[in-house]
């Protein structure tokens, strides 16, 4: 429903850079600094109690700044929220440049962000500020690079790693 997006625009004004409802999915691109405030507003005021999904898209090879994916910056943070009470969904996005790849963590609002944000860090090397435990999750610590970045070659092989000392295993 366009209602959510209208209320966001009314509340945050210029912090909402762009909205669309392509294929029925309400989407708002917000300024990176306003991400946490927008998410908090959606949770507390508009009843979006659930963080369904969180991910990042690497826009390296996408034509920049067109009318489908406007905005500057290589990395786009994407969160899908769901309202149990109102049965609505909304997607909020924010962009960050390559040399400053960081977003605010949503862990303070939803505990579900814990694993998903660790996965974002693991796969894209994007840091979520305020996350209590920013470690790799699916890959091992010695893994070189972040595989879902578009410039990580599909065929790249990783070096073998040495046996870990026992103490580190049991941290």
């Amino acid at each position, binding site marked *: 429903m366009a209602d959510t997006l209208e209320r966001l625009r009314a509340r945050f004004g210029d912090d909402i850079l762009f909205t669309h409802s392509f294929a029925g999915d309400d989407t708002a691109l917000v300024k990176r600094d306003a991400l946490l405030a927008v998410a908090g507003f959606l949770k507390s005021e508009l009843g979006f109690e659930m963080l*369904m*999904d969180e991910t990042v898209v690497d826009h390296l*090879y996408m034509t920049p700044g067109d009318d489908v994916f406007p905005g500057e910056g290589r990395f786009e943070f*994407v969160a*899908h929220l769901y309202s149990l009470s109102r049965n609505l969904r909304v997607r909020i996005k924010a962009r960050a440049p390559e040399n400053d790849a960081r977003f605010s963590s949503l862990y303070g609002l939803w505990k579900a962000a814990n694993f998903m944000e660790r996965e974002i860090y693991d*796969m894209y090397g994007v840091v979520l500020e305020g996350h209590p435990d920013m470690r790799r999750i*699916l*890959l091992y610590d010695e893994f070189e690079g972040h595989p*879902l970045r578009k410039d990580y070659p*599909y065929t790249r092989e990783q070096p073998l790693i040495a046996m870990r000392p026992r103490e580190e295993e049991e941290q």
Partner: protein
Amino acid sequence: MSSPQSVDKARLPAEPSLPAEPGFEEERELRSENMILNVGPSHPAMHGTIKMVLELSGETIVRSDVHVGYLHRGFEKECEAGSYFKCFPYVDRLNYLSPMINNVAYAGVVEKALGVEVTERCQWIRVLISEISRLSDHLTCIGASAMELGAMSAFLYFIKAREYVWELHEALSGARLTVSYCRIGGLSRDLPEGFEAQCRAALVKVREVLVEGQKLLAKNRIYFDRMRGVGVMQADEAISYGFTGPMLRASGINYDVRKANPYLVYDQIDFDVPLGEHGDNYDRFYVRMLEMEQSVRIIEQCLDRMPEGPVNLYDPRFMLPPKDEVYNTIEGLVNHFKLVMHGIQIPKGEVYFAVEGGNGELGFYLVSDGTGKPYKLRCRPPSFIMMGGMSRMLEGHTMADVVPTFGMINMIGGECDR
């Protein structure tokens, strides 16, 4: 009347008196420190290879750290490398206990991006195969977790029922696990000859097993005691941790994607959503048992009400033309060539589509850049997100409670680690 204990005590020799040394009382306080215990990744209870680092105080879990990712295969990277057709085998291998649901979800997200709706018969068949897969998922979940609690015979009953369900998979697609049955805009083939009779016969047998399984487990003293009150997740916490599916419904939250955002023809089907009360493992087990009955109901309605007609949309944008046309007409040949070499041209944009998977909301987020390959295909894996709540659920419980709690999350390595 004296109790047996007191009688026994009277027969025992008197306790030796303690030596009255100064400071002895303090020394009797045993020095204790928490023990770190690694469980897994290769451990019979950690099926699907995960590792848990548990900090134990005696036998009580103080803190735990869950390590997932041992089965990471680069699902998203692989999908980005191939065309839209080539993702089907990968999505089969996400939740390999309910591959049909993954197929339906992936086909659904691509169709949503294309803005097309499949034929009515195809929609009914997709509902049918989703529910068949849900049966297989829940049967395995309950059977395996019962086995881990020592109920080996219950496991065999449930696996027997799963066998009937997998025979249906086999009849549909030729494979038992890696089905790749759906296609964008339809299915790989219509239901085979005699499928309805086979399906009805299988449902009768599955129902029998459900009754037997219920008798074996629901009032089983050992099973009940180990499940009730263990791994409790209150409703508000379950929401915060992003729980979906049977785990969320066991906490009493009425959220089922099939009811909340009906896709395919779920809005025309009569079924109930069982809810739990306590949010513990026993409720999760019971919700799953009742859900299987509902799944059987849905399958029967599908068999009764499924219309005749075509299953595929013959649209040259995404459906391969029939072989007859490819070999005999130039248009068919060019169409086939374009689809195979350049892939489906999906307009630039982004869509999210969710279905009710075996373990919860299974969503796909597709970003298309207008070429023949997915620019990004993100899978929202329900069990991965629920593993994030594992540490919370285990807090204060004992080592032995890890097994049923982990079993009820029904973590599937393929889906969790992708």
